[in-house]
């Protein structure tokens, strides 16, 4: 429970919250109106998570809370007090030479982005998709990744990358080889 000082009852309230972010304990003093996204980006410097629309329509802000994917722009940081949060920075060790998360590697292998702005959200969403375990084929992957918009239009490659990892190599959608650096016609 978050303690509210009586003086705060008449206006915006201040809160001390403790989170576990990418495996590290974290304490923050925040106002009630700070979204989880703004806490991550503006207060904690974790700018991998992107602010696209700030209305839950684009998915660029997707993070994992207790392993479940959510839109971090649509929740208040104070509501997530005590939770374990994973952002794109936490998918693989941030060390030189460390292996990438298999999805990160697959996105590179399949050229699954152009500008890359949506990619952190796509990656966290795909991890969430795998944790949920409902995707059985490429159509399922398309449907279950529909909360993540890619305005560059890298969808075919994103589907291939996610299928490769999430479906264990069975890729009903991979009908065309990807040639890195080219635009599919």
């Amino acid at each position, binding site marked *: *429970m*978050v303690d*509210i000082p009586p003086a*705060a*009852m*008449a*206006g*915006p*309230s201040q*809160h001390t919250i403790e989170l576990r972010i990418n495996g590290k304990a974290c304490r923050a003093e925040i*106002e*009630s*109106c700070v*979204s989880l996204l703004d806490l991550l980006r503006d207060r904690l410097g974790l700018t991998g998570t992107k602010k696209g629309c*700030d*209305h*839950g329509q684009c*998915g660029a802000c*997707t993070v994992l809370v207790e392993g*479940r*994917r*959510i*839109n971090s722009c*649509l*929740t*208040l940081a*104070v*509501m997530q007090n005590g939770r374990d949060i994973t952002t794109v920075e936490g998918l693989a060790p941030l060390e030189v030479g460390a292996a990438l998360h298999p999805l990160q590697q697959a996105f590179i292998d399949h050229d699954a982005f152009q500008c890359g702005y949506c990619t952190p959200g796509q990656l966290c*969403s795909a991890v*969430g*998709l795998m944790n*949920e375990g*409902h995707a059985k*084929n*490429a*159509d399922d992957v*398309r*449907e*279950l990744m*529909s*909360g*993540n918009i890619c305005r560059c239009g890298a969808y075919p490659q994103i589907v291939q990358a996610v299928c490769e990892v999430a479906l264990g190599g069975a890729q*009903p*959608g991979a*009908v065309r080889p990807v040639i890195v650096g080219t635009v599919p016609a």
Partner: protein
Amino acid sequence: MNKFCYVQAASVDAALAQIGAGPDSSTAAGIGKFIAGGTNLIDLMKENVMRPARLIDINALALGGIEAMPDGGVRLGALARNADTAHHPLVAGGYPLLSAAILAGASPQIRNMASNGGNLLQRTRCYYFYDTGVPCNKREPGSGCPAAGGLARQLAILGASDQCVATHPSDMCVALSALDAVVQVQSQSGSRAIAFADFHRLPGDRPDIDTTLAPGELITHIELPLAERFRAHSAYLKFRDRASYAFALVSVAAALDVGADGRIRAARIAIGGVAHKPWRDTQAEALLAGELPGTASFGPAADRLLVGARGAGVGPGSNAFKIPMARRAVVRALETALRGTVATTGESKDQEKRP
């Protein structure tokens, strides 16, 4: 976003005590609001469409369960998440129509966050309601309705008033309507049950009021009566501007109870995306009782459902196309239900085979 005070409630009693205890609870702008998933409320607060002085976080309340009732029905906790509800064995197995409708709505991220109670209480996605720079009778009673003569593609063709053409955007609620769900609510003065048909209201001359939930009342559960007889023949059909992650232009929850003689014993039909609430007409359903299922019987039922339908909007914003679309959607949803339980979005599932 306005500055607000955030508090957490540890129990239903504490939440009910807190909802009326805010500093400005006497004014509409200042009244406290419960927050669960927050996916719609926080968005509306960012747009200054809603400005609660106080948010009461109810996520710690023990209302997250989904359990079988002694009479064979299922009780959905108000705080169970949409995704968990859709995939729960009691729902996916016993109420495939509800499962399909929930999974046709929003995105996986939002379904992971959104609560069942909040799904019922989400506000319309009418552009004019969201835009605080223009009048809106739902947002500011008496200010006017530019939607009726504007962009009404997503808006109502049934049950609208001269003050409001908003639609209720939920998919889940369309199935709950067809399934005759019951909304259990609690307040400091006790608890009561609201039949789903009575929960959402038509706009009339008070479009600012979406539901019959009284101030200070909290949704605790949604009860699903036993629907075994409809389980084999139900379908949720959703037409929208994108293949996924878009609100319905028209959606239909259809369920048939077909007897051993091949005749319809009972039918349920609810239409989404067309009115201020999921649209049902029990007289249309009664037309199907005793009939042989097929286009010959489905057509008149669809016609009956759409009696009084009227387009709104002008030019490219006109929604008159939704009247014939809704009629065809009803017939097709019933045909789909007849063939067996299918979760259909109207999209082909064989995209892989296309060149």
